[in-house]
């Protein structure tokens, strides 16, 4: 593997080994939790207290600090899920399969939060809870894709086969990701156009932008925490007959 430095390659090789992954994530977890809590506290304090009210929407716009990071996460997690699913398909790496399926419930939750907070925001601002415009509809389809992935995985008993089926579904669904992102540019929608994620300068004042970005990074850490916890459990379940699990359990007794 040229282009990628050796220590990085070695890191990934070691992470693909279940016992190493299990031990490493255990040590990593407290750090992730601390960083997540600090970022969330800073982001919420900045967003709810320090940031000024909006010239049009007053204080109601502050729901942006949950809505937008959740919506970004719903797309980000889907891409992570599809890519690790593809890695599992091609290289048959067990841990990639586990990361893919462990991401699905977290992604579904963020999608749900984005839809609900958007609805709560829509009622006072637009005058309606829900419209069938391209952005809202494609985001709803994303929720169904996540639920489909979770359901399909649960429906197949052999988890390695299930992982392959899920990866194919996730990869087909990837086509929805650019649709969600560009829906507000390609079609007329009631939903606003992009504020931050565009080539141009963000159309949000810097005092409001900084807490938003803090929240976005905080949510990334939350995803890591939730996904890794699920992955560890899933790993133990799949490897319950492996020697390292038996040794670990007998040591902890």
């Amino acid at each position, binding site marked *: 593997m040229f282009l990628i430095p050796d220590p990085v390659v070695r890191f990934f090789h070691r992470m693909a080994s279940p016992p190493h992954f299990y031990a490493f994530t255990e040590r990593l977890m407290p750090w992730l939790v601390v960083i997540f809590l600090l970022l969330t506290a800073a982001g919420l304090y900045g967003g709810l207290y320090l940031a*000024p009210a909006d010239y049009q929407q007053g204080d109601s716009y502050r729901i942006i600090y949950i809505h937008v990071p959740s919506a970004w996460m719903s797309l980000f997690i889907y891409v992570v899920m599809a890519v690790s699913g593809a890695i599992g398909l091609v290289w048959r790496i067990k841990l990639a399969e586990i990361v893919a399926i462990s991401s699905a419930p977290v992604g579904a939750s963020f999608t749900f939060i984005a839809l609900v907070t958007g609805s709560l925001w829509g009622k006072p601002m637009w005058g309606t809870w829900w419209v069938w415009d391209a952005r809202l509809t494609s985001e709803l389809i994303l929720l169904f894709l996540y639920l489909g992935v979770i359901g399909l995985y649960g429906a197949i008993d052999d988890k390695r086969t299930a992982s392959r089926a899920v990866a194919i579904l996730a990869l087909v669904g990837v086509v929805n990701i650019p649709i969600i992102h560009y829906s507000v540019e390609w*079609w007329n929608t009631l939903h606003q156009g992009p504020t931050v994620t565009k080539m141009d300068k963000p159309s949000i004042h810097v005092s409001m932008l900084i807490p938003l970005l803090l929240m976005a990074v905080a949510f990334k850490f939350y995803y890591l925490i939730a996904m890794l916890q699920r992955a560890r459990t899933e790993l133990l379940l799949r490897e319950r007959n492996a020697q390292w699990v038996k040794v670990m359990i007998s040591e902890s007794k």
Partner: protein
Amino acid sequence: MKPARKQRLMLIGLMVIGAGLATGFALKSFNENLMYFFSTTDVVEGKAPKDTLFRLGGMVIKGSVERPNDGLMVRFKLTDFSKDVTVEYTGILPDLFREGQGIVAHGRLNAQGVFIAEEVLAKHDENYMPPEVKDSLKNQPAPVTGQKS
């Protein structure tokens, strides 16, 4: 890379490209239906449906909002900066309804080419800033006359 892996990777690539192309063509052919609203130019050029409900989107022209008979009926002009359409609506407007602000109205055209709205939704734009910054930009949209706030 081992041949089997290479083959699987290529299959996956083809699958994603195939799904993308199929969706692309489908969206292209349903492009009209995916538009949430018609623009005022569509209406003036007769592209909007007649005798049936549809949505009309545009910006409320500054100074065009009037209440002709002291009731809840409000009349205003919508524009997409090329053609204008007059809209009449009886009911309570959303908080964000302002002159110079984008809105989406649901209703139908009458014989005079006036759009009779049954529902008006406000479409806020992508700009977020404190009021002081907006003041310093010196183009604050005037609040709608007669609107309760």
